[in-house]
């Protein structure tokens, strides 16, 4: 089943009062997301990710094109009972406490008082702000707001989850927690559609990704297909290696950096790494980490952006935004 389907979604923004030519934020975007997928929606600032999500949430009306969620047109309000949405840098009623806010959301979905109480308590714990449940949202930190935002998106056990930069503003622990929540949701069969800038999170979570630039789809597919996932080198970090061995290590490496007692080495392959490990042991040093270096999404991202910018420097038909307008 296609859980999310966008067909030729286009959005023009009127900028300025007298300007005739609108700014095209989305340009004939077509996308399909299958049931149970974790779908990453990527693109640089201003690519149109938030615009797309807002259109799906009925907050913006598309200039043309159409979209379906769970095989219903997005204008159908009943669809919204089965989805959850976390807005970008969310902000909620600051005079409500976390608990009151979630109860309010629960009641909007039509749950009874007991049901609301149960869901609220569960979710507050699930997103790790159970302690702050009686604190007004005004006093929440950015990360806590982000968490309560995730909680309100989950209050109705949605079938589809739309998250606009769910990791932004979270500390590493928070990011891991959100990652876990997303994975849990997938296990329950929920389809997750999320936009993000944080590429490692995308890499570790997504089944498929779409890359958007200037309102146009640049690429879409399985991460492993989009990226050549081959390992290009290995990065090795060690400290306190005695001098003779450390110089040897530096000679072995493709690239070496020394930061105080610390050695950062880029090694070509496993064989060299084996050798290095022996040297580190001999030099009474300590191994800190070994990480494979792949063509990362980042590399790909930059490449794709460059290509698409080169293909279409002037945004055919619509005016390019000048600074300050």
């Amino acid at each position, binding site marked *: 089943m296609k859980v999310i389907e966008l067909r030729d979604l286009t959005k023009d923004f009127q900028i300025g009062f007298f300007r005739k030519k609108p700014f095209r934020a989305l340009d004939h975007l077509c996308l399909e997301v299958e049931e149970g997928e974790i779908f990453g929606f990527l693109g640089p600032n201003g690519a149109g990710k938030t615009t797309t999500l*807002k259109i799906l949430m009925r*907050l913006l009306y598309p200039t043309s094109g159409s979209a379906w969620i769970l095989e219903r047109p997005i204008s159908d*309000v009943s*669809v919204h009972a089965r989805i959850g949405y976390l807005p970008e840098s*969310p902000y909620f009623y*600051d005079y409500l406490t976390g608990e009151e806010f979630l109860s309010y959301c629960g009641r909007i979905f039509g749950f009874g008082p007991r049901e609301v109480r149960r869901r609220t308590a569960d979710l507050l714990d699930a997103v790790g702000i159970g302690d702050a449940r009686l604190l007004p949202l005004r006093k929440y930190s950015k990360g806590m707001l982000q968490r309560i935002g995730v909680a309100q998106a989950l209050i109705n056990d949605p079938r589809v989850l739309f998250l606009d930069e769910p990791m932004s503003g979270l500390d590493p622990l928070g990011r891991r927690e959100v990652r876990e929540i997303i994975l849990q949701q997938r296990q329950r069969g929920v389809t997750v559609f999320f936009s993000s800038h944080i590429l490692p999170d995308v890499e570790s979570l997504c089944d498929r990704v779409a890359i958007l630039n200037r309102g146009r789809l640049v690429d879409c597919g399985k991460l492993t297909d989009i990226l050549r996932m081959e390992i290009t080198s290995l990065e090795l970090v060690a400290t306190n290696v005695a001098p003779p061995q450390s110089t040897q290590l530096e000679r072995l490496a493709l690239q070496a950096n020394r930061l105080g007692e610390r050695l950062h080495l880029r090694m070509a392959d496993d064989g060299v790494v084996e050798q290095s490990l022996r040297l580190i042991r001999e030099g009474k040093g300590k191994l800190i980490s070994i990480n494979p270096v792949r063509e990362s999404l980042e590399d790909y991202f930059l490449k794709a952006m460059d290509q698409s910018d080169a293909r279409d420097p002037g945004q055919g038909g619509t005016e390019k935004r000048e600074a300050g307008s």
Partner: protein
Amino acid sequence: MKIGHIASNTFKESVREKVLYNLLLFALLMIASSLVLSEISIGQERKIIIDLGLSAVSLFGTMIAIFIGIGLVYKEIDKRTIYSLLAKPIHRWEFILGKYLGLLFTLLVNVAVMTAAIYAALFYLERGLQWSHGLILWAVLLIFFELALTTSLALMFSSFSTPLLSAAFTFFLWIIGHFNADLKHFGNLTESSFVSGLCDVLYYLLPNYGNFNIIQPVAHLEPVTASFVGTSVAYGLLYVALVLGCSLIIFQHRNFK
């Protein structure tokens, strides 16, 4: 039911507004000072208390309606609290109606407090209350409909413009609306059929606040006819329905940026 939840949240929101308490305090002060004024106006004490008291309810109620009404929708958009709400299974009209009813409830509570103050002042003056004092409630009822109308106007303007402009528009209509009867009168006097036609159109188009004002007769404890009250209430309901209808249409087409 969703409307009810939105309304109750709106009520919670509005009772946190400081301006509400300031206005309520002023209204109560005005009612209290009517007691002082009545001391120096022999024979007119009761009339003064009722007159000033009801005027306070109308005036400060209007200010509350405007000051809070203009922010109702604007704030939700400005602070982006509307994003997560409208993504939930509610229609936009439910949102607008919930907001509107929430503020009406706030107004109801405030009007009730002010009315209680008027009765307290009367009780103090006359060492008791009489049945005829019940007339005041009719005046209060009509004032409430006046406030309902003003609130709907503030809500309509705020669904497409800034709070400042909305306040200006609403206040403007509120003033014009008090001279509406004069407009009709003027139309009848003038020779030009164009001007008189225009006056007629404006007369029917603009809100007629005169319909809600029975403060004078009530202050003299003259009986009011049920048909007058009924007509005014019907007029208020119709006008509010139209204005809310416009707000809904405007709001329905808005993009939230």
